[in-house]
């Protein structure tokens, strides 16, 4: 008779193999897991690609005193495009974002700038136009200025967003990739059939985490390779560190998937729970913008989220080349989510 330990290993190996087969034989799942993050990266990389500063587009109020010459003066300045618009046309253009500011000259030679100070392009236009007008009127700057322009890989939006997309993809495929098959097996009473065998129950749950690792290699590899070859996204940290962050993240998100799928009997019920769990994390954890934008009061919560920790660690590794030791706090948060989620899932799991 083989000993219980051997049996457990054999069962775990078979269960993991079965998971991997089930996943790879689901073409839609494969598409969403591998291609979706790449498509996202491609789209965002194109939309936010680095390029010379855009033209500053403004309007000068038509019919105002000296409007024509003021516009001509602005047009002579490189980087500025000025149009003559009447009041309602100018308001419309501003509302739709075609211009960032309206210049309203008055009879005494003063000008009024009309712009939205909460929008970056409004503020920028205010400075550029004012500079142009003041210089044209004879202002001389007391400090001489030279410019030395550089482009640093790592400071671009694509460099920021790729680690975020990686984290997002790990969370999504971890929760969906474990949650749906479990609820499906429960619905088909396959779970009940399995518990009627001597299958070690924890091996069943662990097999989902293990099979996640196999998928992970492809999922992470595909996205990083794409980002590196197409956009030249830097990977300054150690590869081992990067792998470790991804593995730990994938395990933690898989365990969260187990937890979400621990009770529901229907796919619909599980979907609701998954969205409830994932949407806030996606919004708060700094995928497309830095999580530091949220108010200080909620920062303790945000920092404790597993995806925040994974994203921060990935960015620190890839962009700053941070060492593993420096990432210990983030990794500890992720490990805590893994252990706690798995323990609760095992305890409350509905087998029938």
């Amino acid at each position: 008779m083989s000993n219980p330990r051997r049996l457990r290993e054999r069962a775990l190996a078979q269960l993991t193999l079965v998971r991997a087969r089930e996943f790879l034989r689901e073409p839609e799942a494969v598409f969403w897991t591998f291609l979706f993050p790449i498509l996202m990266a491609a789209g965002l990389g194109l939309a936010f690609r680095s390029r010379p500063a855009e033209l500053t587009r403004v309007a000068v109020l038509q019919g105002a005193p000296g409007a024509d010459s003021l516009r001509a003066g602005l047009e002579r300045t490189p980087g500025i495009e000025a149009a003559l618009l009447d009041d309602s046309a100018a308001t419309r253009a501003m509302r739709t974002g075609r211009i960032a500011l309206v210049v309203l000259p008055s009879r005494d030679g003063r000008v009024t700038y009309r712009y939205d100070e909460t929008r970056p392009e409004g503020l920028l236009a205010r400075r550029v136009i004012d500079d142009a007008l003041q210089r044209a009127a004879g202002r001389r700057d007391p400090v001489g200025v030279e410019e030395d322009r550089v482009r640093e890989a790592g400071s671009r939006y694509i460099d920021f967003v790729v680690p975020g997309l990686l984290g997002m993809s790990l969370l999504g495929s971890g929760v969906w990739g474990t949650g749906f098959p479990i609820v499906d097996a429960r619905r088909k009473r396959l779970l009940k059939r399995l518990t009627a065998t001597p299958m070690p129950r924890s091996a069943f749950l662990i097999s989902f985490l293990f099979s996640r690792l196999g998928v992970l290699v492809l999922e992470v590899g595909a996205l990083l390779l794409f980002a590196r070859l197409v956009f030249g996204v830097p990977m300054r940290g150690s590869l081992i560190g990067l792998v470790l962050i991804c593995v730990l993240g994938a395990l933690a998100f898989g365990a969260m998937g187990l937890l979400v799928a621990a009770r529901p009997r229907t796919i619909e019920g599980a979907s609701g729970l998954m969205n409830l769990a994932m949407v806030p994390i996606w919004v708060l954890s700094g995928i497309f913008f830095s999580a530091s934008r949220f108010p200080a009061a909620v920062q303790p919560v945000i920092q404790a989220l597993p995806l925040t920790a994974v994203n921060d660690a990935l960015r620190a590794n890839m962009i700053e080349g941070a060492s593993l030791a420096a990432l210990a706090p983030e990794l500890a948060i992720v490990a805590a989510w893994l252990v706690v989620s798995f323990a609760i899932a095992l305890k409350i799991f509905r087998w029938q």
Partner: protein
Amino acid sequence: MLPAALRLRGLRKTYKDVVAVNGLDLEVAPGECFGLLGPNGAGKTTTIEICEGLTLPDAGDVTVLGQSWARDARALRQRLGISLQETRFSEKLTVEETLGLFRSFYHRPRPLDDVIAAVQLGEKRRARVGQLSGGQQQRLALACALVADPELFFLDEPTTGLDPQSRRQLWELIEGVKRAGRTVVITTHYMEEAERLCDRVAIVDHGRIIAQGTPRELVRSLAAQHVIAFHTGAATGAELEPLLAGLEGVCGIRQREGSWLLESRQAHRTVPALLALLAGRGLPLEELSMHSATLDDVFVHLTGRQLRDE
């Protein structure tokens, strides 16, 4: 005498306000094929799932192969082969992958090729489960029980929903298991299944056993040996009943869907008397049939209801 393969004492299980099992006692001998026969909702599945260690009873003792679930669950699971009602295996795995998975749970699984040959799925071994017919899926379910090479099988309605040919194929498989000397406990609501496969049956209704014995004993326990069914074209009411009861050999009368059913001890005397009666009253005879009493009739006799309620 060998200890019982399965012994249930005072089994009781209630779901919310429904009493599923209501004081059930049962003993199954080793090597026996034992049938739990009853309509849907009689408590058969709850009983068998308690035996399988999937459901905890509210009260009562369960001894399976001399062991109890409370103490020996792990060892016991190695010794049982189980087929649940309506299990669907993963459609994306092949037959041999599914069996490979189940084999990995047992200390001494049967060789894969043996099991596949036993359930005649050799040609389908590399086919995906989703492409199998209903009968083939049920044979796969039985194969998943066979991989354990178990001493005791629990089969919960293994042929429900199958066409007659698939059902006969499955019966042959179960007969093979019996020949190998294994104990089988099977639930069904098909009397012909119970009559063909089971050494003994227990008729279950409202969570308790209302009769048990060999199929032959149970049928013999009926006073009637035959059931005569007939239908008259005209509306026949209560005035006919006392006349029918007075016919020679008649020991029971039922009506079903406009037909009369006479239970008779002496069909050869009852039938001529019936024909004479109808002719005398000018009633047309539109249908007449007769069959030997079956387990179905035993059930109707005991409960006043049909075994199959679909």
